[in-house]
């Protein structure tokens, strides 16, 4: 009897906290389904009296909104591909290949965890602007605008993170010994070992890292704010912020736009949940 009571209390507490955590989200969904009349009338209701989906069509047909979504998708995908490829390559090398200095290099990358990119935006901005032979620049990086307002300018900085390399290294370190030796004797090149043996084994790692990087790229705000100039290069996060600059905020459209920008992230998370919870299954040596 006592255990049942405790278990019940446990669920009640879990539920209360869940409501606190989800209420803002639920309220956003509720607002996005209401017409203006209901949004501005009191008392507030959770469930709309006259729900409608036209808010969504209003937002999507608003100027440039699909473009913003596409830009965010391109940037997030670009960062994910770069991160997955280069972080796994470096992580594998640091974990399994023996070469002089690898301990120091790993420590250096580890220490770089703590560096927030916000304190580096100025030199990175200048670097992107003065990138030689880009965006109208000559070989010394002068004359044009470099990578400003381009996809490369949006994607490259911050594409690779020290945490990514760290996670990959930890993962590869946990694989069974001497997987590679068998492959070497069979005549495989070092890159071949990485490409044909290590990568296929690291699917759970790549899934988790890929999802985290994609979300990071999609949600990024400060850097796109600094590097984009024209409307057509803006990402969805910048696009949301522009709904604010009017004198009177259109809450109806703003909340709907917010919801649209958040849905892809939730979908990706739900899809990836399987990989987050799936155990890592090695097949060992074949």
């Amino acid at each position, binding site marked *: 009897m006592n255990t049942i009571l405790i278990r019940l209390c*446990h669920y009640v507490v*879990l539920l209360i906290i*869940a409501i606190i*955590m*989800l209420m*803002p*989200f639920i*309220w*956003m969904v509720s607002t996005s389904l209401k017409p203006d009349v209901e949004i501005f009338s*009191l*008392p*507030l209701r959770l469930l709309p009296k006259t729900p409608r989906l036209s808010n969504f069509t209003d937002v999507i047909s608003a100027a440039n909104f699909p473009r913003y979504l596409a830009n965010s998708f391109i940037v997030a995908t670009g960062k994910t591909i770069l991160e997955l490829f*280069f*972080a796994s*390559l470096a992580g*594998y*090398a640091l974990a399994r*290949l023996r*070469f002089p200095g690898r301990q120091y290099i790993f420590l250096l990358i580890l220490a*770089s965890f*703590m*560096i*927030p*990119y*916000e*304190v*580096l*935006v*100025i*030199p*990175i901005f*200048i*670097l992107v*602007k003065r990138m030689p032979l880009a965006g109208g620049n000559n070989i010394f990086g002068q004359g044009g605008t470099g990578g400003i307002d381009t996809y490369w300018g949006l994607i*490259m900085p911050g*594409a*690779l993170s*020290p945490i990514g390399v760290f996670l990959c290294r930890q993962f590869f370190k946990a694989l069974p010994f001497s997987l590679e030796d068998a492959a070497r004797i069979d005549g495989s090149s*070092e890159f071949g070992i*990485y490409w044909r043996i290590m990568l296929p084994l690291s699917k759970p790692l790549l899934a988790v890292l890929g999802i985290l990087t994609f*979300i990071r790229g999609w*949600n990024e*705000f*400060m850097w796109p*704010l*600094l590097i984009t100039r024209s409307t057509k290069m803006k990402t969805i*996060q910048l696009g*949301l*912020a522009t709904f*604010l600059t009017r004198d009177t905020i259109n*809450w109806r459209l*703003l909340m709907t736009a*917010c919801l649209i*920008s*958040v849905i892809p*992230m*939730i979908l990706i*998370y*739900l899809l990836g949940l399987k990989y987050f*919870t799936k155990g890592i299954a090695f097949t060992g040596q074949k």
Partner: protein
Amino acid sequence: MRIKEKTKEKRRRLLIGFRKAEIRAGYLFILPAMLLFSLFLWLPIVTTFFLSFTRWDIVSPLQWAGVQNYQRLFNDEILLKSFLNTAVFAAGTVIPGTVISLLLALLVRKKIPGITVFRACYYVPVLMSWVAVSLIWLWLYESQLGLLNQFLQQVGIPQQSWLGDPKRALLSIMVVCLWQGVGWDMLIFLAALQGVPEVLYEAAKIDGANVWHCFWHVTLPWLRPVTLFVVVGYFIWACRMFTPVYTMTRGGPLYSTSTVVYQIYMYGFTRLRMGLASAMSFVLFAFIFVASLIIVRIMEPTER
């Protein structure tokens, strides 16, 4: 005899060849990562340091300014207030954040039916971008129509100005940030909790420990390294705060929510005072670095 020596020699050469290939591959594989880190992490730190002694707006030629920027930093009211706000923000979110994340993790630890749903619910705010989070809370905090004020009115408390009151605005933003962030560290604590060996609890129970003893003498000590990681993580995260300030209050009212990174943006990118902004950046970087070391020292005094 000769044949044996010949094959030994061949094998030796083969193994040396493998080693050489391995070393070559090692350097080659880390090259792209090292290049990107050098360009976008390590070089920029040095550049920030040098730029902090200059006066530059990108279009005009670079001018040397000595320590003028630093002098301005320590004498400007608004900039000093921004540093103070950032420090308050850090102090006010690190401990509550760590405690709440730990409590949540303990709450969702047991594999009772439906627990994965609750875990996912607590993580949803983390998935949302700072912009989306800020906009939703801007709507929730709205004076007349915001959900929060309406709810308070129902229970008899008068409407409050959450973001318009200089004494309250920073706290309001801190609540938003905590709401967004606790889910992430909850997962970190959860992962650590799931690694506690059962035998430790069994041994404690044999010695007559109750639930509280188990927590205090088994769970907490086990969580020490992870807690340090979480605390430093929160600290750095708090010092970086920009987007909620930009979206919700633009540093106001009366600079009560202005953070260092916000001022870096204002001075560096709206007024093109790159030198001054670099000085702020470097001071913030040094502050984060030193403070992190101090935190580690405090929490991990034993040398291993």
